[in-house]
């Protein structure tokens, strides 16, 4: 039986303690941002809940996948192979352009750009906090994800990673109020900062003079100036320019190129020679290693061969 009149600590005291603690936490997290490591640990701790929450949706998806008729599958297959063909055609031209670009850059004696490393990730929770635009993806520190990492979808920039757990990461979207991207107009090369306003299909351009050369419909590409986003990815398209002379700057709104309201699969980007590198799945890594080792072995073999006939290689060098 429960004792009736035993109250060890009064409720009011506990409330005061809890509120004080909460206040302390808010100050620590908001003002001093010393909670980053704790947050990482706690994120990993609660990630099972996030994975559990998407299970019904995944089951539903799988069921609807298996229930698809043969005809829709065949149609989809046809469509995909068509677009694949088209892509490959474009890729050939792309390869050629990349080589040409490299050559030109060499002529100009500027650094050649390396291809960035990518990893596909799936969104497991969307828009959970009403006051900020964030999504949670199913890759974390275990896969080499880091804070500040750029995130794209198939059309353009989506946002950046703001906190990571072991197997999850939180992505702040472009449309969040606290997010801004330095961009450059594709047509005129004018640099502008694109700021989120808390609406998934609207962004605002900051500090644009009335005499700007920007036009409605201009595509804005990331300029790479902020050091977070790599250069040249599509960010937004200018929607409207309101030149109200009574305001200090023109009011320019833009729509994000990425479909921020229905993101599903995202791409994480790594700098080719950055501090952080992607960690692929063990199986994949093992295969990679095997392949590399095999290559090493063959390379060693060729080196050995070369050592045997040094004259030939020297002649080649001379040529």
């Amino acid at each position, binding site marked *: 039986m429960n004792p009736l009149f035993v109250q060890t600590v009064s409720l009011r005291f506990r409330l005061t303690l809890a509120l004080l603690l909460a*206040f302390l936490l808010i100050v620590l*997290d908001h003002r001093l941002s010393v909670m980053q490591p704790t947050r990482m640990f706690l994120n990993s701790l609660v990630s099972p809940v996030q994975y559990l929450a998407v299970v019904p949706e995944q089951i539903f998806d799988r069921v609807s996948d298996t229930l698809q008729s043969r005809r829709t599958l065949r149609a989809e297959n046809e469509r995909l192979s068509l677009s694949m063909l088209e892509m490959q055609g474009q890729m050939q031209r792309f390869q050629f352009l990349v080589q040409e670009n490299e050559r030109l850059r060499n002529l100009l004696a500027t650094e050649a750009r390396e291809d960035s490393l990518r990893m596909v990730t799936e969104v497991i929770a969307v828009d959970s906090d009403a006051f900020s635009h964030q999504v949670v993806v199913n890759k974390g520190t275990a896969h080499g994800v880091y804070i500040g990492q750029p995130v794209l979808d198939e059309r353009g920039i989506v946002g950046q990673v703001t906190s990571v757990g072991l197997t999850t990461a939180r992505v702040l979207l472009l449309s969040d109020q606290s997010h801004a991207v330095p961009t450059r107009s594709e047509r005129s090369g004018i640099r502008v900062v694109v700021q989120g306003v808390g609406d998934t299909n609207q962004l605002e351009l900051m500090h644009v003079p009335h005499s700007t050369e920007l036009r409605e419909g201009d595509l804005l590409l990331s300029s790479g100036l902020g050091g977070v986003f790599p250069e040249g990815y599509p960010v937004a398209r200018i929607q409207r320019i309101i030149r109200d002379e009574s305001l200090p700057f023109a009011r320019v709104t833009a729509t994000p190129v990425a479909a921020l309201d229905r993101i599903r699969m995202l791409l994480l980007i790594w700098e080719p020679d950055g501090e952080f590198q992607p960690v692929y799945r063990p199986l994949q890594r093992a295969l990679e290693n095997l392949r590399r080792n095999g290559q090493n072995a063959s390379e060693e073999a060729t080196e050995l061969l070369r050592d045997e006939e040094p004259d030939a290689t020297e002649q080649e060098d001379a040529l």
Partner: protein
Amino acid sequence: MTSASSLTQRLVICATLIIGLVLAMMPMSVGVAVWRPDWPLLILIYWIIALPHRISIGIAFLLGVAVDILLGSTFGIHAGAYALVAYTAARHYQRVRNFSLLHQALLVMVLVLVERSLVYIIEYYLHNAPLMYRYFWPALSSALVWPWLFLILRKIRRRFQMV
């Protein structure tokens, strides 16, 4: 009451709270999601009213921290708001127990409103959050699901003979 059964009871309470968190995180289309009841808070309120000497402000605070992590909001916002709601519920649990389900539902609506307003006010001070009325709609849906939730949780409580 043996210690083993007390352990299972604790597990049951934990499980219901975790289910609440999962329901709060479950992805839904935007139109439905704005009406999503505040599941963790509802389940917390039930346990506080039912077992005020076991579930109280401490658990509410921890649950609030969990919600903060899951939602990605600043630490302590939901924790503080949950603690305050828990205080109100724990202070008046005897009175609330004697309310009819309809009365209780109305009270729950007010509690959810209080919690959401608190969160909004803090968010406003921290990030200048815009006022969105749809953020407060879940108070209504929470009141609507309360009677059913109450009956289900009571069944669970009686099944495991928690006093």
